[in-house]
């Protein structure tokens, strides 16, 4: 399959197009591991898979671990509804991702990398294998890479088999080890005991692609793009009711209103920010900004136009969670089913005070008592729709 035929639209200039992967690897090869870690720490780069953990800190922990061998995992299990930025990065800039993995390997002392690619992106595999082969030819992967004598690093691709939960890093590790994608308990964290019990760094595709850019252009270039509290820029996946859906790069601190204007969203009724695990924002919130602490985002924006039935959206997302819950803990397995049934009931019959209280209690139980992020986040979209659009339910004036 020609991967470029489904590349999609890119709305503005991406920083990734300005950096060569080999420059980043060569720089890392000449540096002490501690220096690579401190550059990434200084840039303020945070994980782009959604959880937002500081990348430098993760690497520092992994660097300090005694266990050997260590592993770098590229998390390409992009499954959050409405998110497709990693697809674009893997299509256009795979070498930056592999360079990011090699640099991470240099920083923490790992020689092996695995890219965990979701089954739904199986059509990208051949393209990525070719990019890995190209990196080996150029001396960016393999033995003594980037000119550094002691710096060896190589990558293999492993496929997922269709499970959203495997984007959660400990479930991903379970899957790599040949098990069901059941999230693990932490402690230990993957940096302490991850793949096969060894120190493991799991980074998102976009996080890894920023790494060589930060090395080449400097941490202050990266930090200078965002706000003081939230340095850097982010790739946004925009879909739904707008004229120009696609990928856009914005610095942190950009307002939702600005993005909506750029993508040609006329008179939107609501915007889902952060995918199914995110929040549904009504027009009164359009001046909020894309910043952790304000609108935390997995980089996904779904625009809903004036005609959208918002509880149909809630039901669609809820169906997703009921389907994708791994089933090991009760608040998530049963809670998501019950919430789905409740949404169907309220769409048919409306919602009285008693059942609203029950549903809110259920949602709270799920977010407090679920074992991993899936169950903890799953009621958010529904609650934000209930809080802002309850007037759309039958029986409401």
């Amino acid at each position: 399959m020609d991967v470029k035929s489904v590349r999609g639209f890119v709305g503005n200039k991406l920083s990734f197009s300005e950096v060569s992967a080999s420059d980043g690897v060569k720089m890392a090869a000449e540096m002490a591991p501690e220096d690579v870690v401190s550059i990434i720490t200084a840039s303020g780069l945070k994980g782009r898979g959604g959880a937002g953990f500081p990348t430098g800190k993760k690497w520092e922990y992994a660097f300090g671990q005694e266990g050997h061998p260590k592993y770098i995992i590229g998390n390409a299990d992009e499954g959050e509804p409405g998110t497709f930025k990693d697809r674009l990065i893997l299509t256009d800039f795979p070498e930056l991702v592999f360079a990011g993995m090699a640099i991470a390997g240099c920083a923490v002392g790992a020689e092996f990398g695995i890219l965990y690619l979701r089954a739904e992106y199986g059509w990208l595999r051949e393209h990525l294998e070719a990019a890995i082969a190209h990196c080996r030819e150029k001396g960016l992967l393999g033995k003594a890479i980037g000119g550094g004598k002691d710096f060896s690093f190589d990558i293999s691709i492993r496929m997922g088999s269709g499970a959203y939960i495997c984007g959660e890093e400990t479930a991903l590790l379970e899957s790599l080890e040949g098990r069901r994608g059941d999230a693990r308990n932490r402690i230990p964290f993957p940096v302490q005991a991850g793949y096969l019990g060894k120190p493991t760094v799991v980074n998102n595709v976009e996080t890894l692609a920023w790494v060589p850019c930060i090395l080449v252009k400097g941490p202050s270039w990266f930090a200078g793009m965002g706000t003081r509290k939230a340095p850097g820029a982010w790739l946004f996946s925009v879909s739904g009711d707008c004229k120009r859906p696609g990928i856009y790069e914005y610095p942190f601190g950009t307002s939702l209103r600005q993005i909506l204007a750029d993508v040609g969203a006329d008179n939107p009724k609501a915007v889902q920010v952060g995918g199914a695990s995110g929040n549904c924002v009504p027009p009164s919130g359009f001046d909020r900004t894309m910043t952790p602490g304000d609108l935390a985002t997995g980089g996904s924006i779904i625009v809903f136009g004036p005609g959208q039935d918002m509880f149909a959206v809630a039901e669609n997302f809820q169906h997703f969670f009921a389907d994708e819950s791994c089933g090991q803990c009760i608040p998530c397995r049963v809670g998501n089913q019950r919430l789905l049934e409740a949404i169907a009931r309220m769409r048919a019959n409306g919602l009285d005070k008693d059942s609203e209280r029950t549903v809110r209690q259920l949602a709270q139980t799920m977010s407090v008592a679920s074992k991993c992020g899936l169950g903890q986040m799953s009621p958010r979209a529904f609650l934000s729709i209930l809080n802002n659009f309850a007037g759309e339910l039958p029986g409401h004036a």
Partner: protein
Amino acid sequence: MDAQQQWRTEVEQLVRTHGRSRTALMPILQDINRAHSYIPEGAMLAVSAALTVPRTEVYGVASFYSYFSVKPRGTYVIRVCRTISCAKQPEYHPAIAALFNELGIGFGETTADGIFTLEQTNCAGMCDQGPSMVVNEDVHVGLTEASVRSILNNYRRAAEAAKRPQ
């Protein structure tokens, strides 16, 4: 060779590629699933013996992931994305109606000729270009009633060509 011996031989070949460790379980099941469109019981038993992984755990893995199936499926598994960005497109319902009409089956079913299985999938990551569907390892975007018909015809022709003796 009896049927189980055939599975043992096939699995041994896969072990040569992927290794004889628990970490090879997913790649081996993925190859079996791709070659046969599903993971038959005999294959699971052979994998269990070859990797010394309890058969309940092999079944547990084979039944956990949505791309795996422990029941027979068609040569081409069609997975239509049902997440909101795709499902809210005006062409979404017409495209699905065309799939139902052309194939004469509903979701979760396989055509009598064994060529197609129709399923739904959660977000295929083509939200900017929906409606979309994934067929085995190809992705199709911007679906319409007409494009669905022509895509199915291409797969039908490929299935016929594969059946013809070389």
